[in-house]
């Protein structure tokens, strides 16, 4: 299969194996899906979640929204983010100041030697 193989100079990679494994995974998924309960009916009591007899909370209440994800990650990198986020001030002259400063640094780096 020469067309599929990607040569990277120090190795190679062939997507065909991934393709085969994806197909196998899909077949497995179908087998599990097909062996499910046949007596399931939409729109009846069966669809309702069973929470030990407690009333079902509102859908909005059980949805985990984006702000709640990666709390631990954000918390452990607190110091980094505390310094990084305020740099994005949203003031146009600050944007330009960054641009001029980097230009000056590069000029010093390249012109001086």
């Amino acid at each position, binding site marked *: 299969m020469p067309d599929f193989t990607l040569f990277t100079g120090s190795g190679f990679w062939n997507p065909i194996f991934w393709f085969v494994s994806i197909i196998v995974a899909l077949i497995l998924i179908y087998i599990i899906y097909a062996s499910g309960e046949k007596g399931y009916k939409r729109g009846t009591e069966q669809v309702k979640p069973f929470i030990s007899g407690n009333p079902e909370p509102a859908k909005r209440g059980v949805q985990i929204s984006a702000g709640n994800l990666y709390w631990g990650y954000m918390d452990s990198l607190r110091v980094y983010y505390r310094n990084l*986020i305020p740099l994005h*001030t*949203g*003031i*146009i*002259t600050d944007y*330009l100041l960054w641009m*001029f400063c980097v230009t000056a640094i590069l000029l010093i780096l390249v012109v001086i030697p």
Partner: protein
Amino acid sequence: MFWNLPYFTVVILTFIAILTILTKKNLVKVLLGINILESAVNLLIISIGYREGGVAPIFTLAPSTNMVLPTPQALVLTSIVIGVATSALLLSFTMVIYRKYGSVDVEKMRELRE
């Protein structure tokens, strides 16, 4: 020395422009700084094309063949036209900003950040 005068002017204009852009808080003044920067570049290009004692580069009935370069003039014409369009667009944006935010202070114009 005297012929270098335009280049000194370019340097001075550039510094004035950069200082204006970086230090002024009024958006219109920042835009003026941009315009000064544009003029500095235009002056640089046009003075590059100048030859001492040169005449306009029109061959018909030319008094001498010592002519200034025609290309920089064409470039500057194009760049002036672009500059006008740029300023017009920027100023019209500023107008809408003033209408919506009630101010042209660059530090108040930061609804988008982080």
